């Protein structure tokens, strides 16, 4: 069952790829590739580290506040 779903998923990705290949020109496909790559780089390389740093900072501030409150 799971193998069948993986196979079906692969086919659907193929459908998407064929649609892109037929509807977009080569420069448009290259542009889309750049957007796809940038999305991952910005999310994983900038956004999540910022969120992680912010939550670290938030946790540190909360602990510091608790210490001063005591």
């Amino acid at each position, binding site marked *: 069952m799971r193998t069948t779903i993986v196979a*079906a998923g692969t086919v659907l990705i193929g459908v998407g790829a064929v649609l892109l290949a037929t509807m977009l020109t080569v420069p448009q496909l290259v*542009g889309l590739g750049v957007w796809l790559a940038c999305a*991952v780089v910005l999310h994983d390389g900038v956004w999540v580290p910022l969120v992680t740093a912010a939550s670290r900072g938030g946790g540190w501030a909360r602990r510091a506040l608790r210490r001063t409150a005591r």
Partner: protein
Amino acid sequence: MSAKLLDAAHSPARGTRLSVVIGRWLALTFAVCLVTGFYSHLLQDPSTWPGVTFSRPAWLYAVTQSVHIVAGTVSIPLLLGKLWAVYPELLRWPPVTSVLHGLERVSIAVLVSASLVEVTIGVINTFQWYPWPFPFRETHFALAWVILGSLLIHVAVKYPKIAAHWRGSRAASAPDAGRARRRVLALVGAAAAAAFVGTASENVPAVRALAVFTPRRPGRGSQGLAVNRTAEAAGVAVPADAADWRLRVVVGERVSEFSLAELAARPQAERSLPIACVEGWVQDAAWGGVPLAGLLEAAGASAGDVVVESLERAGNYRMTILPERFAWDPLTLVALRLGGEPLSLDHGFPARLIAPGRPGVLQTKWLAELRVITGGKA
């Protein structure tokens, strides 16, 4: 290096349970977007799969497309939360342990990048800003297939973990982990709720001020109705008397021409129909004009799809196809009036199409020609 990064990114809230809980919400919003998005695509491209779009109820498209925009916007905080929950997986070392594992990681990369781009361009598009080098509609549609496929693979691969964590278990996690997880869930849930209110309120007049995530408030524009594409933007200029303008109706070899005065002399009808934009805003308006079915009959037609052409010289929607079900719906008008007054130029003067259950971009303004086709042939 990887261990240090993992340590820095550590949070007790992360874990399979958090992924499963957010993943379920995200699966729901993505599924809603998929169904409503495909419906909108079929309306805009009736040649791909004719016969599955409906002119009734007249508000059908207004609902499906509003839901699409709301669900898509709500997906953003859910997607960010989901990706945050699984971030340590990215930093795993070694990155690939077998060929199968490598393929799975590729499918994840496809899923993540396609999903991020899909929701990003979707939101930017609602602001009518197109800062990308590819066509929006085609790309948004094709990426939906890619996401559906890679998501099916993802769920199938992770199924044992999903099933194991479908129900929460207090014994399975330490109390502080449970607390931290609930804090993250509350944050993601609050962001999703804010996204919901900030978009869904756009079409609820009483709370419209809350629609902070939407660019256009219905009600702005001439004659109390919003305008996406002005006559100036479309390069259309028609003098106020429209003396030289004629609406051509072509049925086979027969060509009929109607002046504005001739259209106004025909039996008139008043209809309350919404303009429902692909960008998610909806506005009801009172239209007056000539029922299209009667006009087509007067020109010698009795059935068929209709090719609708605008005076616009360029533009993606200069020419559209009005499927038979919409063309012959008694609600469909060649509208001459809006709110009892002649159409303003921005609303399509001298005459525009208004049909139930269609995207606003297909409610062709500045009509020039209607050509009846049957079985795809002129």
